[in-house]
């Protein structure tokens, strides 16, 4: 009676463990969402910038925070569908929370298009220009919409990658409102 080829069990099990580990690593990497990767700025102090809004007014983040207001920075553009989805929610939130300073930051877009869009859809707060992309880079923005919530002490308490609705905004805005300088 033939006994067949000898199976080298330790080698087989070792090989399976190595291959299984590699597959798990690859699987884990494929499953990683880019938007989940970039929350590096959360918990860090704000980064100062100055810019001008669509009306030509100069805005310094440092000065806004020095006035005692927490800040919401929303990076958006007219070519971004999710930005349009959240636009109404941000307008409503800005009216509901006058103690919070809202600023839009135009991301890789034409100011004229953005002005037209805001003229038709409403602008409850200023939008800042960022022609060189410096503000976006300073805040680690990789796409839009991305929103930063900066409390009165100047700490970035949350960075949201993706569109937001009122249900998401309210708890964070309450947190900003309750924050201390």
């Amino acid at each position, binding site marked *: 009676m033939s006994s067949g080829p000898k199976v080298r069990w330790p080698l087989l099990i070792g090989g399976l463990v*190595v291959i299984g580990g590699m597959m798990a690593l690859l699987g884990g990497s494929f499953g990683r969402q880019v938007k989940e990767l970039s*929350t590096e*700025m959360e918990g860090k102090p704000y980064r100062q*910038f100055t810019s001008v809004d669509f009306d030509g007014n100069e805005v310094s983040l440092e000065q806004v925070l020095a006035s005692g207001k927490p800040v919401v920075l929303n990076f958006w553009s007219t070519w971004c569908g999710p930005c349009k989805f959240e636009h109404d929610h941000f307008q409503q939130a800005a009216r509901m929370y006058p103690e919070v300073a809202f600023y839009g930051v135009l991301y890789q877009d034409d100011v004229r298009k953005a002005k037209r869009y805001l003229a038709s859809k409403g602008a409850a707060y200023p939008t800042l220009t960022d022609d*060189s*992309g*410096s503000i976006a880079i300073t805040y*680690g923005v990789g*796409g839009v919409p991305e929103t930063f919530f900066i409390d009165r002490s100047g700490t970035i308490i949350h960075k949201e990658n993706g569109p937001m609705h009122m249900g998401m905004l309210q708890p964070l805005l309450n947190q900003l409102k309750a924050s201390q300088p």
Partner: protein
Amino acid sequence: MTAFLLILATALGAGTREYVPVDAETIARAEIPGVPPGPPPPADQVDAIAHEISDKLRCPVCQGLSVADSNASTAVNMANHVRALVAKGYTEDDIREFFITTYGQWIVLDPEPEGLDLLIWLGPGLAAGLGLAWAVATVAQWRREPDDELPSERGDAPLDPYEQQLLAQLDAEIESDPSGGT
């Protein structure tokens, strides 16, 4: 044909973006925490230093391209930002640290050997070491194993009936032809 050549030229040119001078506004707005540790490098070296740094940064909106190799607006802005920082006197370490603390470790194409990324550095060496150990162990095992021979030839088992039959046939053939067939 013209369209094909145009597409081909565009594709081939994708990795060789021509730098445009960084405008004063970009330089003025490029800030990272802290002050530059020293004077800026000579103006004619800024582009080369910046390119070297950008080449190690991942374009956040591309697939497997460095900031230096991509034509995406985000990458162009980042490359300009890097050049502005170099022109201000920030070192490669400062700029690298700025991008890591802003975007995360994934923004660099050569991540620090720590955490899961440690596998990238240790993996190949570990795999080569394991392979070598396995090869050495296998060769050593071959050397320990005696040559293939019948159990009866090793003297540790009696001939089975089939072996006995073969042996008898062989003996009979030898006896019937003592010359060995020559």
